[in-house]
């Protein structure tokens, strides 16, 4: 008997659902890399026939209401509303202005309750009530008074709510699909690279990192990740032709190989193998890449700005480069993200040695990533002399002192930037290669525990 009652209880709690929706629901979420997601929410709606308001409370709190579309057989949409007037005590009182509420005075000494009907006159800075013919300020005397409202005003809700007014042809249950765009859901890739110093190889694992700050949980959602950033109209266009210091390019050679991954136009797709629950405020990681023994090169690099001169030696950057190609490489295209490098210490434990951001990288590319500054390899660049040759001609004599406190020789790629216009090198102690008109490059070998020097003389218009 008891069991039976419980079963009935359970069936009641399953049947009572908000806005006449059954619990049957299929979610699919497509997440773009740039904090944007397309949510498709398929569920059964119960239609009464005729004009009807459908409410969706469990949608993203950051929903872009203008992108909402509801599709179902045999309905037409009258209007869509996104209500964000939230139910708070203050709003509740504000909306009760001109209406009657019940107040319950509690006698602090006896605990006896006195009930009265009151008309709310105003809520500006304090609640003014009219009780019978008396005007009172609520709780002006500090004594306990409960205020009881009869109902919650229609458009006040605990959470922002999407509502769609529809006209349904016939009554009954049918499947509807609600789709909308929302920010607050995003993903990026995170890579773990373990560099093996003895044989110069790296093991790379790639993880997709999903984050959800959209305010709701997506239960049991089929998830598809799109590598690429579709243009968003209001995404804030960057002014063109604005000079910004170029960050060190990590992509040395863009690749030309095609992988086996699914594509959407020019974007790569990463479907998650299983349905997953993306909880609110959760960070979730799913593996997508695991490659071992990829050859990698380790080197040093120092970039000197035009007329860059320093009082103390500066560390060279520690650089790791490797290929993403099928041959002797990672053999995959890499979605944008952060690559973290690890290396084993003397005891064999992996230790973090720095990280670098990569952009969407096609397969077959050569990446060269800076992990940090080398403690023992330093460059001291100094402008030795600036001479004015004529009104439009300057000569700049540069000296670069390189030191190496490591017990092995190193080669430092030294770049002098800022050779604009028809700048030329008049003299140099080591042959340079011109990487571009603006940048001269030297490969300087510094002996173990030793020094090397390089001088160069530039003729420029500035």
């Amino acid at each position: 008997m008891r069991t039976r009652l419980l079963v009935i209880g359970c069936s009641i709690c399953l049947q009572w659902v908000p806005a006449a929706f059954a619990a049957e629901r299929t979610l699919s979420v497509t997440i773009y890399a740039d904090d944007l997601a397309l949510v498709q929410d398929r569920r059964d709606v119960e239609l009464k026939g005729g004009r009807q308001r459908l409410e969706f409370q469990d949608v993203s709190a950051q929903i872009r209401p203008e992108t909402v579309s509801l599709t179902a057989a045999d309905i037409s949409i009258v209007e869509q509303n996104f209500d964000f007037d939230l139910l708070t005590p203050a709003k509740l009182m504000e909306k009760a202005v001109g209406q009657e509420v019940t107040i319950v005075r509690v006698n602090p000494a006896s605990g006896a309750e006195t009930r009265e009907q009151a008309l709310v006159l105003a809520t500006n800075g304090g609640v003014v009530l009219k009780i019978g013919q008396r005007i009172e300020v609520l709780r002006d005397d500090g004594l306990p008074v409960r205020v009881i409202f009869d109902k919650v005003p229609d458009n006040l809700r605990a959470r922002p709510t999407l509502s769609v007014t529809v006209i349904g042809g016939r009554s009954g249950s049918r499947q509807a699909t609600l789709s909308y765009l929302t920010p607050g859901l995003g993903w990026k890739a995170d890579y773990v690279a373990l560099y093996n110093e003895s044989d110069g190889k790296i093991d790379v694992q790639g993880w997709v990192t999903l984050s959800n700050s959209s305010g709701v949980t997506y239960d049991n959602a089929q998830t598809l990740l799109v590598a690429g950033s579709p243009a968003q109209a209001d995404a804030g266009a960057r002014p063109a032709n604005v000079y910004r210091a170029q960050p060190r390019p990590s992509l040395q050679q863009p690749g030309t190989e095609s992988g086996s991954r699914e594509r959407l136009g020019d974007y790569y797709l990463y479907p998650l193998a299983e349905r997953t629950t993306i909880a609110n405020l959760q960070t979730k990681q799913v593996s997508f890449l695991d490659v071992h023994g990829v050859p990698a090169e380790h080197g040093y690099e120092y970039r000197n700005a035009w007329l860059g001169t320093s009082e103390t030696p500066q560390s060279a950057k520690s650089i790791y480069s490797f290929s993403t190609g099928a041959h002797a490489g990672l053999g995959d295209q890499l979605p944008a993200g952060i690559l973290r490098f690890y290396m084993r210490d003397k005891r064999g434990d992996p230790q973090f040695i720095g990280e670098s951001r990569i952009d969407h990288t096609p397969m077959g590319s050569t990446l060269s990533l800076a992990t940090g500054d080398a403690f023992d390899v330093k460059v001291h660049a100094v402008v030795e002399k600036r001479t004015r040759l004529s009104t439009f001609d300057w000569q700049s004599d540069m000296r670069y002192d390189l030191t190496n406190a490591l017990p092995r020789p190193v080669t430092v790629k030294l770049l002098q930037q800022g050779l604009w216009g028809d700048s030329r090198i008049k003299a140099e102690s080591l042959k340079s290669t011109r990487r571009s008109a603006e940048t001269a490059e030297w490969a300087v070998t510094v002996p173990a525990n030793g020094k090397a020097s390089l001088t160069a003389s530039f003729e420029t218009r500035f």
Partner: protein
Amino acid sequence: MRAASKRCGFAMRLILAAGLPASGVAWGAAAMAANPQDTSADKPSALAVTVYRAPGREAGSIDLDDLGGFALITETRTVHLPAGTIRLRFEGVADGIEPASAIVTGLPAGVIEKNRDAKLLSPAALIAAAVGKPVTLLRTDKKSGKLQRLAGTVLSDAEGGVVFKTSEGIEALRCSGLPETFIFTGAADLAATPTLSVLVRSSTPMTRTVTLSYLARGFDWAADYVATLSADGKTADLGAWVTLANGNGVGFPDAHTQVVAGSVNRESGEVEPLDVGGPILAQCWPRGSTSDQPTPMVMQLAGATRGMNMDRMYKMTLAAPAALEEVVVARRVQQEQLGDLKLYRVPDRTTVASRQSKQVRLMDRSGIPVTFVYGVDVAVGDDDAKEPARRLLRTKNDAANHLGLPLPSGRVAVFAVQQGERLLQHESDIRDLAVGEEVEVDMGESPDVQASVRTETVDIDQRKVRELPLVPGVILRSVQIDELTRVEVSNARAVAIPFELRVRLPEGGRVLRADHPLGTKNGRPIFRLTVPANGSATVRFQSGHNEDKLHR
């Protein structure tokens, strides 16, 4: 299923008691769905903490109130996995965890996903989870202590105010002046401590040892050097501590501890901050009284606390310097090479407690030969400028000078012995110094040694300035503007001092004539001279530079 029906039964009773429709959707779904089994990993059996310095800080010590560095934490834990799909929970990870950096090794092949929930169990989180769900309202009569229990439903917790519904009608929490609170029926499925979970599938029950490693914020370290000068000021003893600090609320007992010197690249990681939650604010409708004007500040303040930027919240939890205690350990760290970085290993296992700073001996060297020099920077064109000289301590980081070891950046305090007592002379920052580099420690300004700069003449006539000898190698060709600068250096000390006068010239400028030998350092002219005890020295030099006609 039995547990589920029990829960439903409880809900049922509530419904009957309140005569309300209870929204049992979530519960129903929870009971129906084949949820993965929850298993907690054992407490860590071994821990390793590697602390990295704040990226971008080239020199100087740590700030206990704002620990900008990070650490790599490696935990070894034993897990007992039943067969099936399991949500394996690693409880008690550092609150500053960067979830994207987490690596789990040693699990059977089927790791499906890794999760970190930023939401922690808190009163506000409880309320948020209870919206639309039945709760029990508890009212206490202040006089009699009598409890009144009422079944109700939370309607909203928006913007810090709580609205609920009982059989009597709709009310707001704690607006009546009566002691009111809720009793919740479930703990909202939230973790109490920061937790990382891994969804894993295993075909048979098994026990495994797994390694979890991740980067966490709220750590930092620096080297703190103490240099003690000998009585004659010709040598110094140098000792140093590694000072490391953990600002996290989680401690690491008995951990292998390392610090890494050298600057590693960090991308500005967008870490989802922890939502540490907050109290139930229970904001009410406007409370005004006839005797005092309402201050809108109260509401604004409460609003500000509620809507406080997560980042700050997070920072507060980390930085709340709940009296960081200091611990000093006196065995030296061992240094090894880690790629292009230097790794220092604390010899024994040690406990890196929460909100603690700890010191471990880095090095001790004695009898390091040092020299002192006074120096001043002058710019040509400065007229009638007076400046105290800076005193610099110099040595070289090599074996001949009893050093020759990597010196990680930090702060150095220089002490001198004065009548048997050690007195602090100056404290300054030093950067990372590799073996073989010059060491220069700024000892502060010396008011006893002053340099005054005066421009004697500005001339374009060459003949007038020919009284000074020409600097060897200078050929006069296109010099247009000549300035004769006079620098007087006075010394109020009872000893002669070596002095370096560094000259800053206009673009394209050169020193043409000078009454002292001219050198260059870092591309700039420098005069090295000795200023006699209680005396002064004068340097006069003539400099020339082209004036840009286009801009005249």
